[in-house]
C-alpha cells in the first residue's frame, strides 16, 4: 500500500547511483545546471571512489528554492543505475519516495520496497535499438534518463538543450545526437506516464550567483593574489586547484607582446620538493603556493617548520580528505586541523584560514598571499573535499581594482643606503615582524645567511639561551599580530537570550545555517559563531565565556577544533560539547539539528531528575 506524498515543488532531493567511468558525471551535471537555468537553486554533491572505472559513484542534487547549500539528508527520488548498490540505494529512499530504474531486465518484486513508487524505463533496450557502438550505448543512456527525468519532474527541455548547445558549441553532430537521446527519454515518459508530484517550476531565485567548485575558486584567489610560482604534486582532492590555476594562467598570465608566461607552474617530484620550491621562491621575493591534502601536509612538515623559524612566506591550500594515513581519499573531513596548526617539530604555530564556501575560497585564497608576506610565514587555506570538489551556488567573485598587493616589510636598497639598521630578525615595530631583504638587493648591505638554526636578531648563528628565548617570544608576538589580520568570526545571535552557543567553521557552515532554522522552529535558542581563522580572535574567547554550554560542530572523530579552542584559549573542556560527523559524507542539516536537539533534551531531562 503506497503512502500518499505531499506534492513538492522546488524542494526535494534526487540522487543518482552510477558506475564510475560510464560518463554519468556530465549527464548528472547537466541535470543540475538545467535546474539552475530555470532559476531554481541547487546544492549538488559528488560522492565518488578513488578509482577511474567500474566502482560505485553517486551524485546528489538537492533542489532548493530556499537556496540551502548544505546537504539535507535523505533522498526523495533515487535514480538507481548501478546494480551493485541496488539494495543500499533503495534503503536510502524516504518513505513515500520514488525509484527510477532501468526496466530492461525484469527484477523480482521482492527486490523493491512497498512504501515507494517505482518508475521503470527500459533504458538499455532503447539504447540497443538506437545505437550500434557500445560507447554510444553507454553514454546516451545517461542522456536518455535525463530526458525521462525532465518529463517526470516537469523540467524545461529548452534549458537542457541550451546547455547542451553551449557545451558542444561548434560540434553540431554531437549536439544533434544529444538532442535525439534527450527526446527519446522525454517522449517515452510523456507518452506513457504522468508527471511525478515532485516538480521543478521556473523561479527567479538564482540571481547573479555563480555555480563553482572551491578548488577552482581557490585557484582564482591565487591568480588575483598575485601568485607567480606554483609547485604541486597530484593528490586527491587538491589536484584541480593546480589544474584550474594552469588553465586560468593560460588566459590571464601571458605577456601579450611576447607570449611568455608571467607565472611558473612546476609539478614537483613529490610534496617535499613542491613545498621546497615554494619556500625557495618565497625567500627570493615571489608569491608562491602549493596545494595538497593531509598526506602531503605530513610530508611537508619539515619545510613548514623552516618557513616558521626562518620566516619565509608560503601558502598551502590543504583540501582535506578522510584520514588518517591514506584514509578515505575521495571522502570529506575536517581532520587536518591539528596537523596543520602545529605542523613540524619544536614549538610551532601556523595561521589557518577557514573558508565556508567557494566564494570565501576565492577571497581567502587571495588574502593568504598578503598575509604570508605580511607575517613572513606559512598560511594554510583549509578547504575540504566537500567545498573543493563540489560546485556550490555562491555570490559572484568581486575584486577592488584599487587594491594593492601587501608585500609586507621589505627593506630596499635605498633604505639600506640611507643607513637603516637592518637586522633580519629584529623586532623594530613591536609587532614581532622583522624586515627582510630580497637576495641581490645591495652590493654590500642587507645580505644575510638564512638558516633553520637559532640565531640572533642580526641573523648570526647563536645557541645562547637568552637569544633563543627572545626570538621564540618574538615569534609568539607575531602570532598575536596575526589575530588582527585574519577575517573576524561572524556571529548569528538567537532570537532570545540564551546560555547555549554553537561554534562551527568551514564546509559545515551551510548545513549549520539550516540546522539553526530547524532548532529555532523547535523553540531551541542557540547563539552561533562562525570562526574564519586561526589563531582565534578575541571574539571567540568572549563568545565561549558568555555561554554556559558551547556546541562545537566539526567533521572529524577527535574534536580537533575543540582541542584547539581548549589549547589556545584555556577553555573548560566540560563547557565545550563536541558534535562530530566523520563518516566521510558531507555533514547534513538534519544531523546537526538532531544531535544538538538531542543533547539539549538529554540535559533538560537530567536536570529535571
Amino acid at each position, binding site marked *: 500500500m503506497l503512502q500518499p506524498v505531499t506534492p513538492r515543488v522546488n524542494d526535494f532531493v534526487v540522487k543518482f547511483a552510477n558506475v564510475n567511468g560510464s560518463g554519468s558525471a556530465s549527464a548528472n551535471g547537466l541535470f543540475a545546471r538545467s535546474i539552475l537555468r530555470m532559476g531554481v537553486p541547487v546544492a549538488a554533491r559528488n560522492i565518488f571512489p578513488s578509482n577511474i572505472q567500474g566502482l560505485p559513484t553517486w551524485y546528489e542534487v538537492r533542489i532548493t528554492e530556499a537556496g540551502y547549500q548544505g546537504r539535507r539528508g535523505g533522498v526523495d527520488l533515487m535514480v538507481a543505475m548501478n546494480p551493485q548498490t541496488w539494495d543500499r540505494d533503495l534503503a536510502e529512499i524516504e518513505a513515500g519516495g520514488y525509484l527510477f530504474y532501468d526496466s530492461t531486465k525484469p527484477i523480482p518484486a521482492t527486490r523493491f520496497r512497498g512504501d515507494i513508487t517505482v518508475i521503470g524505463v527500459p533504458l538499455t533496450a532503447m539504447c540497443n535499438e538506437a545505437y550500434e557502438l557500445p560507447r554510444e550505448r553507454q553514454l546516451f543512456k545517461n542522456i536518455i534518463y535525463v530526458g525521462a527525468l525532465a518529463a517526470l519532474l516537469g523540467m524545461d527541455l529548452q534549458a537542457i538543450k541550451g546547455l547542451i548547445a553551449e557545451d558542444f558549441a561548434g560540434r553540431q553532430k554531437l549536439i544533434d545526437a544529444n538532442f535525439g537521446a534527450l527526446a527519446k527519454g522525454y517522449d517515452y515518459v510523456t507518452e506513457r506516464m504522468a508527471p511525478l508530484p515532485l516538480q521543478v517550476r521556473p523561479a527567479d531565485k538564482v540571481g*547573479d550567483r*555563480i555555480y563553482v567548485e572551491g578548488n577552482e575558486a581557490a585557484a582564482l584567489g591565487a591568480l588575483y593574489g598575485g601568485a607567480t610560482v606554483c609547485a604541486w604534486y597530484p593528490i586527491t582532492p587538491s589536484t584541480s586547484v593546480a589544474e584550474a590555476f594552469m588553465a586560468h594562467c593560460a588566459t*590571464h598570465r601571458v*605577456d601579450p607582446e611576447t607570449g611568455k608566461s608571467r607565472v611558473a607552474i612546476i609539478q614537483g617530484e613529490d610534496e617535499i*620538493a613542491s613545498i*621546497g*620550491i615554494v619556500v*625557495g621562491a618565497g*625567500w627570493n621575493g615571489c608569491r608562491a603556493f602549493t596545494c595538497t591534502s593531509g598526506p602531503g601536509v605530513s610530508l611537508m612538515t619539515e619545510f613548514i617548520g*623552516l618557513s616558521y623559524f626562518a620566516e619565509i612566506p608560503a601558502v598551502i591550500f590543504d583540501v582535506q580528505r578522510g584520514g588518517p594515513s591514506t584514509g578515505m581519499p575521495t571522502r570529506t573531513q575536517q581532520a587536518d586541523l591539528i596537523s596543520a596548526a602545529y605542523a613540524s617539530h619544536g614549538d610551532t604555530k601556523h595561521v589557518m584560514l577557514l573558508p565556508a564556501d567557494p566564494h570565501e575560497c576565492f577571497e581567502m585564497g587571495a588574502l593568504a598571499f598578503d598575509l604570508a608576506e605580511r607575517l613572513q610565514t606559512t598560511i594554510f587555506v583549509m578547504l575540504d573535499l566537500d567545498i573543493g570538489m563540489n560546485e556550490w551556488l555562491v555570490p559572484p567573485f568581486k575584486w577592488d581594482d584599487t587594491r594593492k598587493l601587501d608585500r609586507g616589510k621589505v627593506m630596499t636598497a635605498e633604505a639600506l643606503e640611507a643607513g637603516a639598521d637592518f637586522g633580519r630578525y629584529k623586532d623594530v615595530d613591536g609587532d614581532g615582524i622583522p624586515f627582510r631583504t630580497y637576495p641581490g638587493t645591495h652590493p654590500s648591505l642587507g645580505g644575510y645567511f638564512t638558516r633553520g638554526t637559532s640565531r640572533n636578531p642580526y641573523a648570526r648563528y647563536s645557541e645562547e639561551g637568552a637569544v633563543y628565548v627572545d626570538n621564540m617570544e618574538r615569534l609568539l608576538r607575531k602570532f598575536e599580530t596575526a589575530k588582527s589580520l585574519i577575517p573576524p568570526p561572524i556571529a548569528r545571535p538567537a532570537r532570545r537570550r540564551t546560555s547555549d552557543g554553537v561554534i562551527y567553521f568551514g564546509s559545515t557552515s551551510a548545513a549549520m545555517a539550516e540546522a539553526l532554522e530547524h532548532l529555532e522552529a523547535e523553540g531551541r535558542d542557540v547563539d552561533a559563531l562562525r570562526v574564519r581563522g586561526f589563531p582565534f580572535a578575541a571574539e571567540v574567547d568572549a563568545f565561549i565565556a558568555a555561554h554556559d554550554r558551547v556546541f562545537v560542530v566539526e567533521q572529524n572523530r577527535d574534536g580537533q577544533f575543540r582541542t584547539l579552542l581548549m589549547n589556545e584559549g584555556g577553555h573548560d573542556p566540560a563547557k565545550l560539547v563536541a558534535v562530530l560527523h566523520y563518516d566521510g559524507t558531507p555533514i547534513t542539516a538534519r544531523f546537526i539539528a538532531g544531535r544538538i536537539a538531542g543533547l539539549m533534551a538529554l540535559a533538560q531531562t537530567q536536570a529535571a531528575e
Partner: protein
Amino acid sequence: MTYILKPRLHHPQLPTNSLGYTRRDYEGSVSTLCAGCGHDSISGAIIQACFELELPPHRVAKLSGIGCSSKTPDYFLGNSHGFNTVHGRMPSVLTGANLANRELIYLGVSGDGDSASIGLGQFAHAIRRGVNMLYIVENNGVYGLTKGQFSATSDKGSKSKRGVENHDSGIDMVSLALQMGATYVARSFSGDKAQLVPLIKAGLAHKGAAFIDCISPCVQFNNHNGSTKSFDYVREHNEAVNRLDVISHRDPIKVDYAPGQTVRVQQHDGSILSLHKLAELYNPNNRAQALGYLQARQARGQIVTGLLFVDPGAHDLHDSVGTVDTPLNQLTERELVPGQAALDRINAGFR
C-alpha cells in the same frame, strides 16, 4: 656556521678586479671546519673563481643543505644572500629561488650525504629540469659531522677509519648527473686548485644544470689506508682527461698547446672554454661516450677528472616554462592581477 667575522682591514695594494673588488670582498666568515679540510680548499677555489669572473658578489645566491659541506657557504661571498636549507632539500629550494629571479647566479653546495642519500631524488630532479645553477658536491665519502659513518658514495670494499668494510655499491654522482641530463658535468679534486678554479668558473658561466663532483678528503674520518677518498689515494688514481682554461670575451686568446690538442667551446655568455686534451680520444661533447669512458676507467680503479661533458647550447628551466624575461619577483599588480572586468567574464562562465 660561525659568528666570527674577519677583520675588515686589508693591505691597500691588494689587486682589484674591474668592478673594484679585491679577493677579500669575496670571502666570508672564518671557517669552523677542521684544519686541512678539503672543503676549505673548495671555498677558496669558489672565492678565486668569482673574483676572476668579476661577478658582483651580491648577485650570487648560495644555497646548501645540511652537513659539513653545507656549512661552507658561510665562509665565502659574505655579502651574498645564503640559505642553509634542510637536509637533502637544497635542490628544490634552489629551483624555487631560481624561478623567482632568473637574473641571479645560483650556486648550490652540498655533500655526498646530503645529495647521494636523503637528497638523491631532489638532486636528480633538479638536474633533469635543467635548473640554471652550478651544483657542487663536496664529496668525501663519509659522514663527517656525525663522526665517520659510510656515505652512499663510499666505494664498495673501502674501509672506514675503524677498519669496517663497506659492502654497498657506491653511487657515482657524475654518471648520475650525466644520465639525468646535466649539461655541464665535471669532476675535480679539492687538492688540485689549478684544475678546480677554471671548472668552477665555467660552471658558473654555464646556462643550464652544471654539476661538479669535487672529491674532498675528510682529514678526520676518511684519510686513512683503505679509504678511496684519501688525499694519497686520489692523487695516485687521478686520471685527468683535460685541462681547462676559461677565457672571458674580454681576454685575448693565448695558444699554449700544440695544434690538434685543444678544443674550444663557446658558452652562452660568450666565454670560451679552451680544453687541452690530456687523454687521447676523450671528447667532452658526447654524453654516451663520457658515460662509457667513466665506467671503463672506474673498473680499472681510476678516478676520472676534468670537464667530462658540456653542451654549450643548453636550455634551462625558464626556457621550458617559457617565463617572461623580467624576474617574476619584480612583476607588479599591473601584470599579475586581471581586475574586476576580467572577473566579470570569469563569473559569467560559472552561470
